[in-house]
């Protein structure tokens, strides 16, 4: 009836609005809105990263006050394991407190800053679309690119704020070797890495319909960047692989050593390129959809799908395959360096002696046991995601119809736990296998395949404890379930910084990963394995008992 009249009447107004602000209409409101939604989250991230850096700088100046002490620290770090874990060798030439901080922390903090930026982008873009809220907002006077641009603006603000606070905070500490110019670059390096991965996440958020998958893909890119630089740095000075990684680029600005700014241009170039790609891709798809059109599926369920375990496996399939492949490749990457590691260290007799004094382990073995810690923590990330799946099903309202059928609560949670426990073990196995296969090829030592796979599997009980913690939280404190992330994060911090900052033993003992025998460098001991398994079983039992007696949370 009035259908033809109305658009004609409104056309001039809408054209006016479009020329006024165009594809970015409403972006300022959205930025304010995003900042308001993140008013707690972002300050927590930024303050935590800032305090982490400042505390570390402080501890370093307490623990390594003299040049001699720093030189001996540099000597122990001048090994493939030390370099793979920290950064390029060039820092070691002049190991003052500034270069020490930069060498030890930049790669590690880079991963965390990247993570923060990825989560900002996916939360404000794909997350909004997936829940359908973006549709509501887009129906108002909001331009096509406003959501993505607003998310970027928040990421830029967070990263720039962090960079400035780091530069200011470190300079004001007045530590010898930590000067203003170096601190400015050190802060800027964080922002550069954050913006690079924000742009990467903007691309992955266009590809898939699901927030979880978008974040996962971006995390995989972070992981690949980290492994590339680790493998490159472990090999010594040449380090071609490190030049393929944005984390490698920022480490090669050498803050407090050379203070060269130009590698940051590589980051910015990549960030601008990826961001442009994201904006282009976003115009090629519908709101709420991915780049690939949703396909039709089977009209009936297979028999396996209607069993609780088969169903759980179906839900976990994508993440499990992703992590399995990722960790297999990650292990392979480290394994490939094993050969280089041996060559590099063959020449350094002194180091060989030092190592033999420690425990009679070979270079390869001590490098391998260090890498195992990294691989097991990556597997722990999978395990936490899998063990928290029942919680996300519950809050999404998808547990309710299932638990109204003949499926008991125990069997429902149990099916997810079975996938988490077995899946975590498989992921670990694949990581060890990739490490072992590549390592065996690089060193022509076939025995490494079994040895390294076995060493990786020794971490399985610690993974199960992680599952147990997540389930116990889910059963008794469902709203605090995400606190389960503390386990891998804590293990990472202790495993990574514990030795350097000389954490007391109890801090290491608090983490399940601290109790695992350091295979293959150390001997196998069964007692901790049995105890960890028992603790895991106890926690799972506790969690199930809690879930049995609590209300299901419904929408």
């Amino acid at each position, binding site marked *: 009836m009035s259908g033809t009249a109305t658009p004609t009447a409104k056309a001039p107004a809408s054209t006016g609005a479009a020329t006024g602000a165009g594809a970015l209409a409403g972006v300022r409101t959205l930025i304010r809105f995003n900042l308001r939604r993140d008013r707690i989250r972002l300050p927590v991230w930024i303050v935590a990263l800032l305090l982490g850096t400042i505390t570390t700088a402080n501890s370093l100046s307490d623990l390594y006050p003299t040049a001699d002490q720093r030189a001996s620290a540099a000597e122990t770090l001048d090994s493939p394991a030390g370099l793979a874990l920290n950064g390029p060798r060039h820092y070691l030439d002049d190991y003052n407190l500034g270069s020490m901080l930069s060498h030890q922390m930049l790669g590690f903090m880079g991963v965390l800053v990247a993570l923060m930026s990825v989560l900002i982008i996916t939360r404000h873009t794909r997350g909004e679309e997936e829940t359908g809220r973006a549709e509501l907002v887009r129906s108002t006077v909001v331009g096509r690119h406003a959501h993505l641009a607003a998310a970027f603006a928040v990421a830029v603000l967070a990263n720039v704020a962090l960079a400035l606070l780091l530069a200011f905070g470190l300079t004001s500490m007045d530590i010898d070797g930590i000067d203003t110019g170096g601190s400015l670059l050190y802060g800027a390096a964080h922002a550069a890495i954050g913006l690079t991965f924000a742009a990467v996440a903007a691309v992955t958020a266009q590809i898939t319909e699901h927030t979880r998958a978008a974040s996962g893909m971006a995390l995989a890119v972070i992981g690949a960047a980290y492994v590339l630089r680790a493998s490159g740095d472990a090999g010594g000075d040449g380090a071609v692989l490190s030049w393929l990684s944005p984390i490698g680029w920022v480490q090669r600005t050498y803050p407090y050593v050379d203070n060269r700014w130009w590698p940051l241009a590589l980051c910015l170039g990549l960030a601008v390129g990826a961001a442009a790609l994201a904006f282009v891709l976003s115009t090629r798809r519908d709101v709420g959809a991915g780049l690939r059109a*949703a396909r*039709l599926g*089977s009209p009936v369920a297979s028999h396996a799908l209607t069993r609780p375990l088969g169903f759980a496996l179906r839900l976990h399939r994508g993440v499990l395959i992703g992590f399995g492949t990722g960790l297999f490749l990650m292990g392979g990457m480290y394994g490939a360096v094993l050969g280089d590691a041996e060559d590099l260290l063959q020449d350094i007799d002194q180091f060989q002696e030092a190592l033999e004094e420690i425990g009679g382990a070979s270079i390869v073995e001590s490098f391998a046991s260090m890498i195992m810690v990294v691989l097991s923590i990556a597997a722990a990330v999978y395990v936490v995601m899998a063990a928290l799946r029942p919680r996300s099903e519950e809050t999404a*309202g998808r547990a*309710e119809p299932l*638990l109204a059928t*003949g499926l008991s609560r125990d069997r429902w949670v149990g099916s997810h736990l079975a996938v988490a426990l077995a899946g975590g073990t498989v992921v670990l196995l694949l990581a060890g296998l990739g490490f072992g296969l590549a390592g065996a090829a690089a060193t022509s030592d076939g025995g490494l395949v079994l040895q390294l796979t076995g060493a990786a599997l020794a971490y399985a009980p610690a993974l199960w404890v992680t599952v147990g913690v997540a389930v116990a939280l889910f059963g008794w404190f469902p709203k605090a379930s995400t606190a389960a992330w503390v386990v891998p994060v804590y293990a990472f911090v202790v495993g990574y910084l514990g030795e350097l900052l000389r954490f007391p033993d109890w801090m290491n003992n608090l983490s399940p990963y601290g109790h695992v025998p350091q295979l293959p460098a150390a001997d196998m001991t069964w007692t901790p394995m049995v105890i960890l398994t028992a603790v895991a079983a106890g926690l799972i039992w506790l969690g199930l008992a809690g879930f049995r*007696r609590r209300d299901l949370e419904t*929408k």
Partner: protein
Amino acid sequence: MTKAITVSGLHKSFGRTHALDGLDLDVETGEVHGFLGPNGAGKSTTIRVLLGLLRADSGAARLLGKDPWHQAVELHRRLAYVPGDVELWPNLTGGEAIDLLSRLRGELDKARRDELIERFDLDPTKKGRAYSKGNRQKVAIVAALASDAELLLLDEPTAGLDPLMEVAFQDVIKEAKAAGKTVLLSSHILAQVEKLCDRVSIIRLGKTVQSGTLSELRHLTRTTIEAETERPATGLDGLPGVHDVQTLDGADRVRFAVDGAQLDGAVRKLTDFGIRSLVSHPPTLEELMLRHYGDELAANGHGDAPGNGHSTTSGADGTDGTDGADR
């Protein structure tokens, strides 16, 4: 007749909110029971307690003679549930979700499933995210009705369905009733409840305010009478239970509202004046509902009797508007 559901004095609070405040509910085996109430009255909470998804703070609830919390799984094999807000798995098709839910409940009757998919005009090959709200609802309805459950708990099952599908839904519920199944139907659609339900319970703020057959409930409220008499009818105002007397068309016609219990006396009085024509409008379910929620309307500025829906508000709503009464 045995009871399929008995609930008495049910209490449930979430933090400081009292969702259920001593709710009572009785559903006979084989009946379709309407469960009415405004948003937030506690309908969904009650159904979730009956499903053992929520644990009541106090009060008694029995379902098919069993305890819904402790014997939940056993009971779930004998009942089917359609949630008000159906969420599906994004990477599963609707057909897969139907099979999953019905097989987890018991055996799946494939022929029945396919017939229902046909009747509800559902495409079972689409993935969860591709469905509209109404189609997600259909998935849950098909899954619930494809299994041979003896008790159906339906929480506003047709909120997103179009009128054609609404008819299909009413047909399958009538069939379920004919097959001897018990249905608890929470709903906002009064026409649906009037068509399908044997008895209704009206709840408000977590309490049952009225329960019975529709005719019992109608008896408790007012009927509108419009009569043409030979001589002008007088003295009606003085009768007990008669309200809002209006004289129309030069005193030959009269219109008034009368309480159900006093109907007999009022009509008898009219015969004294020689009835030429008589029209009576029984109260609609809307009027029943409005009578119970009258004070809420009053608080919102739509009525004029704070806290006392019975005397004024329902009279105004039930009798003044001719369009309301003609329905």
